[in-house]
């Protein structure tokens, strides 16, 4: 292209821009420097076009359209235009006023950027869909509420496809004093449940209050939703906290100790509802730890959490937990045993994570989580007290940017009791995250039971030890959530 036509085209670009954007030009413009550049070009434009009405010919407009870069943010170098020196640009930047404190950016500031983004005071909404398919030689003895339910019985194959969970979340800041989080869930297509619905204070010094329905801070795993879990199923010890973990209506006060490192003390009180059906010695439902007694028998929990940032790459996060309530007991034949007995649950959890912060060095990371629960049920009606417990320990190794391998060992009934026979589960899985918003997981597991235990003999599962395999997918749409450590 000849130099002359190049200049002509440039001039017409300038004119066209001025003509199109003449009206919405913000009062304080794109900085003094930029204004000067535009002014210089406009002057030239007016000189060549008809006086007062700088309308370029269609040919010029077509040329201009052809020259404009395709919606790429990188501006193509435009040779020859007058540009103020960097020093002048810096002065101009220093001279422009700063938008008011705390206020959303004024219209002018947004207009400078090209367009305004849509303002809405609706809560952030997201939907998480988890699907699972699998096969088991028999159904697991019991399922947590959001474990995949592939039906079948204790002596019958368990297989099929299920929508493991559908979760809908609404989250927002309420006002300068509170925020609110609501999570509705439909596990295994069974009906709408409130997974959590609570307010959190944001303006109290040092302490924070939560109220509503929320996941208790007891242990590590109980606080987690399905989509942040590293395995298809919850750990077996989850059954000590209830069929869906410990998330009844209640209130929580947590206090951040005034120390140079993270130590948090939490106190909780809950109104745990009685189970729909009392556990029976001859069927596999776990004996409920809480939810018995009168309505005035509340469940109390306390947790101490501490964090040790050993180094940039290695972190240690631990907790000590205790909870007390009243057990509804269980049925054996025609009698109900341990009804109204005081139950205590003690827990200790440890999370050790190795992850070098610089991903250019390596994507490899390793997370080791272990939790131990010990439960006691007081002596009642001539029956001696019961003590049982269990743990899980798991390793999750990140082998590449989007690939993770997980290995978990569950051991429930360690120590064992009359109601809690020894149950071991070993799980190995592989997870692939196509993006931050989707995941695919394959998992195999082996369940083993103490065939000599009287409760196992009563339930008579077949086979006693069983193998199962699962495929799981998960997608999240809507607002981008933050990830807890």
């Amino acid at each position: 292209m000849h130099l002359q036509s190049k200049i002509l085209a440039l001039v017409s670009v300038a004119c066209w821009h001025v003509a199109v954007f003449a009206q919405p030009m913000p009062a304080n413009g794109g900085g003094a420097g930029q204004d000067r550049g535009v002014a210089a070009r406009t002057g030239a434009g007016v000189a060549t076009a008809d006086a007062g009405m700088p309308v370029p010919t269609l040919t010029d407009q077509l040329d201009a359209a052809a020259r404009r870069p395709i919606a790429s943010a990188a501006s193509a170098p435009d040779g020859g235009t007058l540009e103020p020196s960097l020093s002048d640009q810096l002065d101009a930047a220093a001279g422009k006023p700063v938008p008011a404190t705390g206020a959303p950016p004024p219209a002018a500031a947004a207009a400078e950027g090209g367009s305004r983004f849509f303002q809405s005071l609706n809560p952030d909404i997201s939907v998480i869909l988890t699907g699972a398919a699998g096969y088991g030689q028999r159904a697991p003895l019991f399922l947590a509420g959001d474990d995949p339910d592939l039906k079948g019985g204790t002596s019958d194959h368990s297989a099929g496809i299920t929508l493991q969970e559908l979760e809908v979340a609404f989250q927002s800041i309420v006002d300068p004093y509170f925020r609110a989080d609501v999570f509705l869930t439909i596990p295994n297509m069974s009906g709408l449940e409130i997974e959590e619905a609570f307010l959190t204070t944001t303006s109290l010094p040092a302490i924070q209050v939560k109220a509503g329905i929320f996941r208790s801070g007891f242990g590590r795993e109980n606080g987690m939703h399905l989509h942040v879990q590293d395995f298809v199923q919850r750990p077996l010890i989850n059954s000590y906290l209830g069929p869906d973990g410990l998330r009844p209506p209640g209130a929580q006060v947590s206090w951040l100790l005034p120390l140079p490192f993270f130590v948090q003390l939490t106190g909780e009180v809950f109104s745990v509802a009685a189970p729909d059906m009392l556990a029976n010695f001859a069927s596999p439902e776990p004996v409920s730890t809480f939810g018995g007694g009168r309505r005035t028998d509340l469940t109390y929990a306390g947790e101490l959490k501490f964090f040790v940032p050993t180094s940039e790459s290695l972190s240690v996060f631990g907790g000590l937990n205790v909870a007390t309530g009243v057990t509804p007991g269980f049925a054996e034949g025609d009698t109900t045993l341990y009804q109204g007995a005081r139950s205590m649950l003690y827990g200790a959890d440890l999370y050790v994570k190795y992850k070098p912060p610089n991903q250019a060095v390596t994507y490899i990371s390793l997370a080791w989580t272990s939790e131990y629960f010990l439960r006691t049920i007081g002596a009642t009606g001539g029956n001696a007290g019961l003590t049982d417990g269990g743990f899980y320990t798991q390793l999750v190794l990140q082998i590449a940017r989007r690939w993770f391998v997980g290995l978990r060992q569950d051991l429930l009934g360690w120590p064992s009791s009359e109601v809690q026979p020894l149950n071991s589960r070993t799980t190995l899985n592989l997870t692939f995250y196509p993006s931050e918003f989707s995941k695919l997981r394959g998992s195999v597991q082996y369940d083993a039971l103490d065939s000599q235990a009287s409760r196992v003999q009563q339930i008579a599962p077949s086979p006693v030890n069983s193998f199962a395999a699962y495929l799981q997918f998960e997608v999240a749409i809507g607002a981008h959530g933050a990830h807890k450590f």
Partner: protein
Amino acid sequence: MKRILILFAIAAGLVPQWASASEPLKVVTTIETLADLARRVGGEKVSVESLSHGYQDPHYVEAKPNLTISLHRADLLIRVGLDLEIGWLPILVTESRNDRIQPGQLGDLDTSTLVEVLDIPTTQLTRAMGDIHPKGNPHFWIPPVNAVRIAKGIAERLKQLRPEAKDYFEAQFAKFLSDIKGRAREWEAKAKPLAGMKVVTYHKSWTYVSKWLKLEEVSYVEIKPGIPPSPDHLLRLVALIKAEKVSALLMEDYYNKAIAQEVAGQTGAKLVPMPSDVGARPGVKTYFDLVDAILRNLDGVIR
């Protein structure tokens, strides 16, 4: 008894502690560049801490509980905004139990409100486009004009938090402006020969630098923001780099270099890892070091 209770409440941190005028303001920033600018403007009247390090990808910082402690005591939180920190900061701010730095408070400074934001989407977004930032491109802190805007915003906010030190903060900002203007001529001279250079960048995060230095971004190694490239995207990219005679492949130090190295090796384009934040490399200790390092690295391409 009452006195003992009050003393206990203070010890327990249950009574808010208003920083006394003689004590430095506690400033917490999300990235190290903002920390350096805050130190320059705040001088001896602030103590500054950054939640992330320059060698980390600011999209993916782990929300470790010790960061809660830093935020708990902060008088001012300075963040990038535009959802850059959305994966980790909101949860920390909520758990900080610090009403001074909650969104919209005087102690919360979103620096994206201070600069001209680029890449604001004008069409309907879907995540099929990758992990896009619906409010615009948040990687804006490198060009000097934006650094001045951010520093000015910090100065204004510090003045509001400590009105009695107004003159001090103004003088500090004036000093910063004169320091940065002192370097302007040299930077301009170094930038001039770079204009028009065709580049491919790893993530779409050099937009502001490209605009400042008039680099022409031809394509990106990531097929879409946050999504690693597929083999056929890489084949197309290699062909494009050859056809467009792209001279450099720019990427942040914190990305894994294996894929980019492969592309560079097949095309003859020069792989240029660059620091994108203060602290990204041992020698990059200040904002000025950061700009110097970027210009030096780009200068290496044309030599």
